[in-house]
């Protein structure tokens, strides 16, 4: 992989910088997000409620990608696959009669982790551009597999009968409760993710991105460390997928289309590739921009696409600079 140019060409850290990069700021962001659903209800703007929930869900998925991409340098172009598998876990379990979130969400996590773990055994044997292409191809494999599952709607997907219950209670039918479940899970995994990164395992994982041979010399084997991180990230993405399935009450192969993997990468990069909570900013920016542009024109991608190119050509976005993280 080409070495990333040093980050110091535009990093003149302001006094705010260290705070913006600290885990504490991540909690501030979650708190801001948590204020949105309440405000939406108070002001009678149900759309904001939906939007805040979507942001939380995609922030969770982007956060799991940021864990391996931003912190571990693993450019996965197939992160939509575990995301979609989480959604299908909810659908298939409901079909089998298990509608409780206390069953569905852990199973979704395990299914996503299993998929990423198994595909990771092959993908992680490769580097750089091979890794990008292989993660993309393996995600397409999942996509086409679910496309041909006629029992679960095939191409068209399938409607979920009802949202998951929690210990038999239909709490999640209420959109406000659901929004806070999504935000709560985001907060939980943000804290857990930061704890993991601060641990010995996390430091080795981050170190591998900086200098693999040095860690090898210290006796650390890259492969198992990366595999565990990759599987964990897949599990968390699957939880996000399970949430989205519940929010929209609909599951289709489009959940794991390769464009969604691309969207997640865009979110992570816009979030600055630095601390995990950058993913929250990235997800919010992408979703709000998409929403705004799609109000302007149905062909909003004709604007969004060049925007991405410009962001790259102009070297890292505004957000990356504000967060002080490293650009891609």
């Amino acid at each position, binding site marked *: 992989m080409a070495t990333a140019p040093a980050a110091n060409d535009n990093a003149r850290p302001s006094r705010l910088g260290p705070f913006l990069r600290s885990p504490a700021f991540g909690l501030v962001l979650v708190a801001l997000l948590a204020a949105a659903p309440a405000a939406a209800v108070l002001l009678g703007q149900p759309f904001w409620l939906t939007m805040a929930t979507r942001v939380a869900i995609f922030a969770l998925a982007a956060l799991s990608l940021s864990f391996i991409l931003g912190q571990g340098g693993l450019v996965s172009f197939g992160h939509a696959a575990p995301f979609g598998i989480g959604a299908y876990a909810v659908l298939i379990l409901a079909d089998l009669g298990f509608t409780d979130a206390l069953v569905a969400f852990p199973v979704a996590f395990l299914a996503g982790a299993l998929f990423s773990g198994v595909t990771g055994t092959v993908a992680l044997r*490769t580097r750089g551009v091979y890794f990008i*292409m292989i993660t993309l191809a393996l995600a397409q494999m999942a996509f086409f597999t679910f496309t041909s599952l006629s029992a679960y709607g095939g191409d068209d997907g399938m409607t979920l009968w009802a949202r998951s219950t929690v210990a038999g209670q239909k709490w999640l039918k209420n959109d406000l409760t659901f929004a806070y479940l999504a935000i709560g899970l985001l907060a939980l995994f943000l804290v857990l993710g930061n704890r993991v990164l601060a641990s010995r395992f996390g430091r080795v994982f981050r170190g591998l991105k900086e200098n693999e041979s040095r860690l090898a010399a210290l006796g650390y084997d890259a492969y198992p460390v990366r595999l565990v991180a990759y599987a964990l990230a897949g599990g968390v993405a699957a939880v996000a997928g399970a949430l989205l399935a519940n929010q929209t009450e609909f599951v289709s192969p489009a959940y794991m289309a390769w464009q969604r993997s691309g969207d997640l990468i865009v979110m992570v990069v816009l979030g600055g590739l630095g601390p995990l909570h950058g993913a929250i900013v990235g997800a919010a920016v992408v979703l709000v921009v998409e929403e705004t542009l799609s109000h302007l024109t149905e062909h909003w991608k004709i604007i969004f696409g060049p925007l991405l190119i410009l962001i790259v050509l102009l070297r890292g976005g505004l957000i990356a600079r504000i967060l002080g993280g490293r650009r891609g």
Partner: protein
Amino acid sequence: MNTTLLLVQTLNGLQLGVILFLVAAGLTLVFGVMDFINLAHGVQYMLGAYLTATAVAWTDHFGLGLALGMLATLAAGFVLEILVYRHLTGRDHLEQVLATFGLILFMTEGVKMVFGASPIAMRTPEILSGSVVLMPGLLYPVWRIAIIASGLGVALLLWLLVARTRIGMLVRAGSTHAPIVSALGVDIDRLFMIVFAFGAMLAGFAGSMAAPILSVEPNMGDGVLILAFVVIVIGGIGSIRGAFLAALLVGLVDTLGRAFMTDILKLFFANSSAAKAGPALASMLIYVVMALILFFRPQGLFPAERR
């Protein structure tokens, strides 16, 4: 499962393989020469199909339309190289992924705005339509034979170009020792521009040839791009020979798997479960093959020698 069906499907597999090779060739060269990952290569395939279909409808002559379409695709390749790609060489792969992803969004949406989202049709030329009897009981469309023949022809030309000409020598040298080639006074950026635009035209040619048998629609490049990725990963990035063999392998495995997987499963399992699992397994097959090959040879079958 009878011999005729097997033959037909083998020919179909060859035809898919040839198309994949045309797409993968440009991709693998661009990667080889410039260490550049181009997600938007499928867009060139789609663009080629649209431009040729338009030119054929406009000139009302297939050969003329194809030539015009190829020229236009080549021109589009140069324009894109100048506007976008040349600024991305030497950048981090993640940046290339992001920018070319943006380019896909732009081009796909642009084509959708100009030509509409619904598929457009392209007629096959009169002499190449219809079918021929290859052997008793085996009727095969002439157009598909034309695809296989022209694809193999282009593969041969490409091999001659890469193996026997000066520019081919530079491409080969550039794909393994770019800094040294550059130090010897070769303008590697110009080389990249030529390779890129030429690769775009090859992909466009593949799109044009596939246009009469597939529907020409804005997302037609996506599936091909990902299969082309599988091809160059299996074949070894930067290797034309690897791309050729891997393309035929992927084309055959995919086509034959889709045609016969259900029947094969029926030999071992109940009919109903075979009918359900067959299509799912068939669509996974090439990826499983890819995973197996990579498990034993992470650099692919014919890795270009590096540094």
